[in-house]
């Protein structure tokens, strides 16, 4: 089962680098290592908040937390996976080796 977490830097987990500020659904993420400031939509903020507070998590755990009490479909998992892959390419999340 693949699990996801916040990325590691040279000095350990980079959790302290990230600040997420939300107004309503949308939010802004700051990465102190790179200085980047970006607006993210509600789902991206929700997933990132989960990683910030409860890493490491599997895709199904993330999906379940996003849609509590609902029956999860293949589409839901795909959406979560795509988001996580995007996070990975941006350097804000890492896939942990099994």
């Amino acid at each position, binding site marked *: 089962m693949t699990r996801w977490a916040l990325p590691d830097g040279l000095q350990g987990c980079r959790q302290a680098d990230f600040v997420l500020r*939300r107004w309503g659904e949308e939010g802004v993420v700051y990465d102190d290592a790179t200085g980047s400031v970006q607006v993210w939509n509600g789902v991206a903020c929700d997933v990132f908040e989960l990683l910030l507070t409860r890493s490491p998590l599997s895709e199904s755990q993330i999906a379940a937390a996003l849609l509590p009490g609902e029956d999860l479909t293949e589409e839901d998992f795909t959406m979560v996976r795509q988001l996580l892959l995007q996070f990975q390419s941006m350097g804000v999340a890492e896939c942990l080796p099994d």
Partner: protein
Amino acid sequence: MPAGLSAALRLADMSLAQVRQRLRSDGLWLRLPPFVVHVRSEIPVVAQGLHLLYANHECLDGATQGFADFHVSVNARRRWFRPLCSFEMDGFRPFTPLAYGEAYAFLEWGLNWCVTSYCHTLLTIHSAVLEKNGRVLLMPAPPGSGKSTLCAALMFNGWRLLSDEMALLEPGSGLVVPAPRPVSLKNRSIEVVRQRWPQAVLGPVAKDTMKGTVAHVRASTESLSRAHERALPAWLVFPKYQAGESLTVQPHAKPDALVQLASNSFNQHVHGRRGFEALAALVDRCDCHDLCYGDLDQALAWFDALELPS
């Protein structure tokens, strides 16, 4: 010239000839709150501009003062085909030389550069800043937004000027620190100000600069006399001038407002997390709007009717 230092000497207490002589020799020491600046220049238009536009600013005695935040000069550079001038801060020449006629404007741009390059204990944001009823309005804006006309107009309409170009924000308290200096005007706005406010004191006009025709108008006496009063932001407005357009106001979503603010900030990244959180707190505290206007009076009326954020 008064010899003692007990009464604060204003630049206007010196004649233009005295100002010119000082600038050519030991230089002028000026209190430009919150900084002290030591200026030298042999160029006449710089003396004229300073004498007019900083008339009410305090002139200090260099020997007693001892420490200046910035030692600057604008000097002539002779080229065989075109007379030029150069801005220098203590041996650093960050800009390529400009045309000789732009010497006064060069000083103003150079002073802005000094603050944004070397002052990092405060957060600096590229924005116009004015105050009314104890709360501050910020207008971060790219060139061409009509910000300079609006800024001058608000000042003449009773708003206290903190800065026309640069908001200085204390990261801890969230208070904005005033730094009132001449308001820069471009192209059309110079004529607009001249027509509407004949009492306005306009400085040297520089034509054909990179920004078009540029001039500066003296800050109001109230703005200068209250330069020690910091205040909290209440409104973040993104103005856009469009000739012939009627007034339209939209709320500006806070997440995007924060990104705009960060991209207009010269040193948020230097402050790291604390800087980001200070800007987020500012956005949180303010009502954020997009303002599109074609009529200056309509815009002024809207600003005057602004209420404090709930």
